[in-house]
């Protein structure tokens, strides 16, 4: 049945049809298993984020000694013992694939655990809430203070809160830029205003986003901006464990006293006493008892809140817990609960993760630290010389990924009696040009291969450039073609 409302009523309503005003959420303090897990994960995540740039790693003279460094000017990425070059960007593709599948696996096992425990938005919002609670007090005090209006004491508290928030936000931006330059030097430069402008710009941007997203937008980021809730809704299945209100046990809701009386009479009474503790602690301000919903980030704080209430009234814990609809139905039907973490979906995700890890590890362990790429001249593809022999030109790019200069020799396997010449090089060894490649560098050289004209030979024969590190014996090859006009 629809009832008609008058225009006046609509216009008088603050929640007019154009927009909904933000309803402020006042999450209450809570303690319990999941809150402890969240504190622990927050400490780990923030600890890694803020401190990682300061971890040192000895790579020898002249190389950066920062464990994790994205060196844009020199186009190098350092991750502990790994040094990646731009052409090895596929490792990042692998990491992204891993991250995606890991997210799918998490989702198949425990719903939006990523959202509840690990997402930066959750972690920083949680931290900001902790600051807010510390300065302004818990839920009731904050609500009262907001309703009461401004006083000197309140203004002072607000200033303090925002100052601490901004400090955290500023450090968040500050830690970010440290990943792109030598951290101790940059900290010094930042403090003395010697750092490049771009560093200040990025700190400014990330200070602003952290402050806004964690201080103001909070749950709205999850509800309005983030695509993951929508995607995960399509990825989840009936076996995934989600934070669930076990309505088979909770309904009908009833006060504690009445419940005792009714139970004595042998009537069915639910365990939920409608105390709203689960709603009060929810950082996104939802009522979990309404079932699975977009706003739920599965942080499990309502489980802690409900458990403590259940303990107080002497009922078993986990009226709200990680559960799924199959088990709700099974319990209603009087059957035992079943949990299936191992099923086709999770096995596929897990094996994919293992496979991608294995491929990446293999690629990483077998990658060469000496490499050569070849590009054949296209215009002209082949040149006839005055003595009738044929010459092809190639551009060879040599890569030395080691931390020292190396002398390498260039050999050619291809057409019969071929000779090789490196442009700009006076060959000490005429048949085998030797070149020096600087440490951690690439060198591009023009190489000419000349061979006598052979009428019987194919128009195009494969030619392999073999470069050998004279000292280490490391060999790299690249194959192209030798063409006759």
């Amino acid at each position, binding site marked *: 049945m*629809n009832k008609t409302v008058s*225009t006046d009523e609509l216009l008088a309503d603050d929640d007019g*049809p*154009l927009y909904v005003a933000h309803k402020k959420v006042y999450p209450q303090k809570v303690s319990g298993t999941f809150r402890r897990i969240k504190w622990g994960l927050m400490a780990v995540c923030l600890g890694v984020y803020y401190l990682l740039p300061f971890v040192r790693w000895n790579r020898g003279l002249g190389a950066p000694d920062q464990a994790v460094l994205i060196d844009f000017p020199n186009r190098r990425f350092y991750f502990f013992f790994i040094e990646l070059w731009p052409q090895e960007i596929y490792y990042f593709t692998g990491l992204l694939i891993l991250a995606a599948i890991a997210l799918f696996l998490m989702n198949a096992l425990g719903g939006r655990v990523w959202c509840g425990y690990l997402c930066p938005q959750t972690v920083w919002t949680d931290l900001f809430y902790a600051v807010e609670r510390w300065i302004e007090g818990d839920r009731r005090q904050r609500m009262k203070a907001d309703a009461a209006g401004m006083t000197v004491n309140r203004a002072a508290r607000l200033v303090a809160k925002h100052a601490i928030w901004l400090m955290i936000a500023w450090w968040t931006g500050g830690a970010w830029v440290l990943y792109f330059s030598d951290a101790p030097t940059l900290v010094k430069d930042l403090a003395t205003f010697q750092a490049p402008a771009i560093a200040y710009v990025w700190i400014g941007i990330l200070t602003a986003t952290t402050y806004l997203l964690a201080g103001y937008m909070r749950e709205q980021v999850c509800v*309005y901006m983030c695509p993951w809730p929508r995607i995960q809704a399509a990825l989840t299945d009936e076996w995934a464990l989600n934070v669930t209100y076990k309505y088979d046990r909770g309904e009908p809701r009833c006060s504690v006293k009445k419940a005792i009386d009714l139970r004595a009479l042998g009537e069915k009474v639910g365990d939920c006493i409608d105390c709203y503790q689960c709603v009060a602690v929810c950082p996104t301000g939802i009522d979990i008892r309404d079932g699975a919903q977009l706003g739920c980030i599965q942080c499990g704080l309502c489980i802690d809140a409900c458990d403590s209430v259940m303990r107080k009234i002497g009922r078993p814990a986990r009226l709200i817990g990680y559960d799924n609809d199959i088990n709700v139905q099974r319990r209603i039907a009087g059957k035992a609960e079943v949990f299936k973490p191992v099923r086709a979906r999770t096995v596929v995700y897990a094996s994919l993760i293992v496979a991608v890890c294995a491929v990446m590890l293999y690629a990483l362990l077998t990658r060469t630290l000496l490499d050569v790429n070849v590009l054949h001249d*296209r215009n002209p593809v082949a040149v006839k010389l*005055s003595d009738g022999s044929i010459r092809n*030109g190639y551009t060879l790019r040599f890569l030395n990924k080691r931390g020292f200069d190396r002398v390498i020799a260039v050999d050619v396997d291809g057409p019969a009696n071929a000779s090789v010449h490196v442009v700009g090089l006076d060959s000490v060894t005429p048949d085998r040009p030797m070149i020096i490649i600087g440490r951690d560098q690439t060198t591009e050289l023009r190489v000419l291969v000349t061979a006598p004209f052979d009428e019987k030979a194919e128009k195009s024969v494969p030619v392999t450039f073999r470069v050998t590190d004279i000292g280490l014996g490391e060999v790299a090859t690249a194959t192209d073609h030798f063409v006759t006009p």
Partner: protein
Amino acid sequence: MSEHHEVDSVSGRTTTGHEWDGIKELNTPLPRWWILTFYATIVWAIGYWVVYPAWPLVTGYTTGLFHYSTRASVTEELANLEAMRGEKMKVLGNASLAEIEKDPALLALARARGKTVFADNCAPCHGSGGAGAKGFPNLNDDDWLWGGSLDQIMQTIQYGARSGNAKAHEGQMLAFGRDGILKPDQIVTVANYVRSLSGLSTAPGYDAAAGKKIFAENCVSCHGENGKGNQEFGAPDLTDHIWLYGADEATLVETITNGRAGVMPAWSGRLDPVTIKALTVFVHSLGGGK
């Protein structure tokens, strides 16, 4: 706002008043900050109109507060680029040709500069890769009419050949037929003799001795006794496998009858000395240099 707004009893929300086949649309409003962001973009757009060139007028357009122009900024960027290059080009200008070629960094710089200059100025005749065409030498091979050393290549680029420049290379293939020096049958005979010099087949019944005699009387002054050519006059080596205009009998007859005098323009007035230097190194490094 019309009076059609209703409250949906299931969701407790108002409807928009739109109805299709009995299905009513719920009013699901955006959050306030979202709407405000939208309004902010509108305000931003208005600011854009004012600050940047935007409004087309009858004979022009509004130029905006700061008279911003993409053309002006491109010009500025190009000037910056030239200034930036200035330093590097100075280094190139101070180094000798041989030094440039020995230093990998300078060589790369000269080749990069030379490549673009070549594409702009030389490619129309010599081809974008320097492969040449009939009458236009291939710069990738090792046959050089006027010499293929770094200095000789630079000399040729600077002053050209038969270009009218005072320092240009001079010398041309005479029109033996047109000028009546040789008779047509003599030309055919000497053409076959020239083919035999580089091991090409000769026409049946051709008189080798007569050919040799005609060659000795008319051609050796430029092409040399053995037909090895002379870079002084740009006279090609007739014993090698490279033929600028072609080696078949008809082409040779045409060449001997009417002569050849291809022109290479002088670039010294048109390109600055450093650019010519870079171009020289580039051409030399194509592979044809000696």
